[in-house]
């Protein structure tokens, strides 16, 4: 029973990670596109400045709670995906350091180099993590001892790559709606154009992702409720953005990426890692979990910590609720949260 609860918790952390860090990835990818001057790029970066680090912790707790609640899953997944995870780590390092270091010197080669680190890192992360999550569902060669028997190329499954591409597209969409909500023109206008002109890409990908996910282990193509929610939400994102409902559009893109990730985990259960060698070798919620006492301890810990975390993380979004603006015409260029103007 508790291991089912913990599967939900792990899925919750992965979902939360993409809902939150997803827009950080999107902004990272887009910052050189929506920002032409250095100031404009910094506007985009500062829009996620207060949040990206706290959002990244969702990845850490997703991994750590896998280790605690499902050690076999953690062990098999992290050792199978070895080189892919190495790339993930390099991307995390490049991106993470770029936030802090980019603006530390005024040398344009320095900031350009860190901008590229931020962009490439932000693009690689949803892509690679998506491949990892997709591989869990489509299946990897795993033997009876739950050891991976394939090589690096076996990780690049078609479904995994498509999951990664879908999550990348959703992250970019999500980042764009965030910028529309949290910046002023010209960055805001450029972000809005990206949503309207390119939003059809994630829409098509989410639809195809739902169909493909269904087809993996069944004959039916009709999406289940959560997948349907994802499809409706991603379409709504573009529609709401076109109507100028900026907050609602961001809410829709959050729902779109969240429901997409959640649908993968729903489809995955009761397995946690599918073996393409034989379904008898699947890692499941039951056979991969820790014993009862450890799960009880972890449940108490999560029950104590999570509400508090959600409150103070939510509060930080409230503190920095106003838009980030660039320099005004007559005064000293000033970067930082400006007074709310226009739609909030």
């Amino acid at each position, binding site marked *: 029973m508790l291991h089912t609860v913990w599967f939900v918790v792990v899925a919750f952390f992965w979902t939360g990670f993409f809902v939150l860090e997803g827009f950080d990835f999107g902004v990272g990818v887009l910052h050189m596109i929506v920002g032409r001057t250095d100031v404009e790029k910094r506007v985009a970066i500062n829009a996620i*400045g207060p949040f990206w*680090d706290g959002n990244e912790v969702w990845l850490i707790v997703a991994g*750590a709670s896998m280790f*605690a609640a499902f050690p076999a899953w*953690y062990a098999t997944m992290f*050792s*199978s995906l070895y080189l892919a995870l190495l790339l993930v780590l390099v991307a995390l390092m490049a991106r993470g350091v770029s936030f802090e270091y980019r603006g530390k010197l005024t040398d344009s080669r320095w900031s350009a180099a860190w901008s590229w680190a931020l962009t490439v890192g932000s693009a690689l992360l949803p892509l690679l993590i998506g491949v990892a999550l997709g591989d869990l569902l489509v299946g990897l060669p795993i033997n009876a001892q739950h050891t991976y028997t394939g090589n690096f190329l076996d990780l690049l499954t078609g479904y995994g790559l498509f999951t990664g591409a879908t999550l990348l597209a959703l992250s970019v969409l999500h980042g764009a709606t965030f910028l529309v909500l949290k910046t002023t023109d010209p960055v805001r206008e450029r972000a809005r154009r990206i949503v309207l002109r390119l939003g059809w890409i994630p829409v098509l990908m989410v639809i195809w992702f739902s169909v493909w996910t269904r087809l993996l282990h069944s004959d039916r193509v009709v999406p289940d409720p959560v997948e349907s929610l994802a499809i409706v939400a991603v379409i709504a994102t573009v529609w709401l953005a076109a109507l100028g409902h900026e907050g609602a559009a961001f809410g829709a893109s959050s729902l779109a990426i969240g429901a997409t990730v959640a649908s993968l985990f729903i489809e995955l259960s009761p397995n946690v890692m599918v073996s393409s060698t034989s379904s008898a070798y699947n890692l499941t919620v039951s056979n991969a979990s820790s014993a009862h006492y450890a799960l009880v*301890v972890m449940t108490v810990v999560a029950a104590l910590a999570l509400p508090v975390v959600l409150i103070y993380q939510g509060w930080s979004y409230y503190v920095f609720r106003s838009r980030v603006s660039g320099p005004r015409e007559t005064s000293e260029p000033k970067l*930082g949260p400006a007074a709310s103007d226009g739609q909030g």
Partner: protein
Amino acid sequence: MVDLARWQFATTSIYHFLFVPVTIGLGFLVALLQTAWYRNGRPEYLRLTRFFGTLLLINVAIGVVTGLVQEFEFGMNWATWARYVGDVFGGPLAMEGLFAFFLESTFIGLWVFGWERLPRRVHLACIWCVSIGAALSAMFIMIANSWMQHPVGYTINHSTGQPQLSNVWDLFTNGTFIWGYVHVLLASLVTGSLVMLAVSTWQLRRDPGGAGAPFRHSARLSVIVLVPSIVLAMMVGSQLGVVETKYQPMKIAAAEAQWETCKPCSFSAFQIGGGSNDHTPSQIIEIPHLLSLLATGSWNGEVKGLSQLQGEYEKRYGPGNYVPDVFIQYWSMRVMAYLASLIALFALWGAWLVHRDGLARSRWFLRLAPWAVITPFLMNTAGWLLTENGRQPWIVQGLMKTVEGASRSVSETQVIISLTVFVLVYLLLGAADLALMLRYGRRELSGEDDHSSGGGEDSPSPGGHVPVAALTY
């Protein structure tokens, strides 16, 4: 492949732990500076807070990303071990994420961006939350590591043969944890205060009357924190040694290159030879009874020799070599302890100068202090080598050997690739970190730090000019 995996884990851990004590120690000191400003309202203290806060952030950036590597590495390279210990070890790691990392990472964003958005009291609470988060993070890691050194609070599941958590409180009352954690905290305070002292004295020496003058406050603060920290660190470390003699006698015996059981035991201050194949090193300096005191707390205490322990362990665990690398043990212990003694003397000198209000005028102290900043990094590294190497050949003392813990599906080629990548990336990041620390450590303290958030345009000057208020991105 196990050897490569060990090299990699040692490399990434040592590198990560270059930055962690700075985060914990300097973070605490920055919180103190901001508290002082909150109380006395003097602009000098605000400028110092933001000055050292910038150095803290430059350091935290690398500390965080190198920490991510550690979490992933457990599963990537040591999957067999992870599967085996996860029921016990995974818990503290998850607690670390939920209690410590969320706190530290959320509030650091609030602190960096919240200078003019938050009421002063709330903003001050933010940096304290960061400091507490960092200290909590160290706590959970030490709980986990201490369990590897001295497993407690578990039972062995008879069908799987794996340890299972049976009493979480035992993890917190583990003697290895209590003394080890306090020791790490104190070592972090030593590190942070030596970093602050190095920068402060350099600034004081460069311009004692003008821009450097406010640094006498931070110099004084660092000395006041350094003195009790280094003295207590040595005392706690000594007590940790006594605990380890009880639970990991091989570790301590190897650290003393003590091949034969002795009672009483002399402390070997300097020897030649004494590696794992040399059972009779040449003692150059020996201090009678000191090892008995250090290891057992009593004048005539017995310390079991490596040869005797090896025999006992073979009977208990089967054939194998149970003696850790003696050369690393012996010298890492001494590098750590001798440098600590040196720093303790240095700190006392500083304290005497502070007492006489003569620190800013002491030519020699101001000259030496910047160089002292190297020592805590050597001590911290030596300390971890001592404890981790001393646990070998065990990955979990008495339960699993290191050779048994590596991932079975990961090839040597893959580890060579990852080790190379980490070394290259870490060198690049380290170079960037050093460049920025030097540049921002030498920056002139100015009134522009009074106004928050970023950007201000820089006056046109040839590349590399330091932006004015560097706290926002």
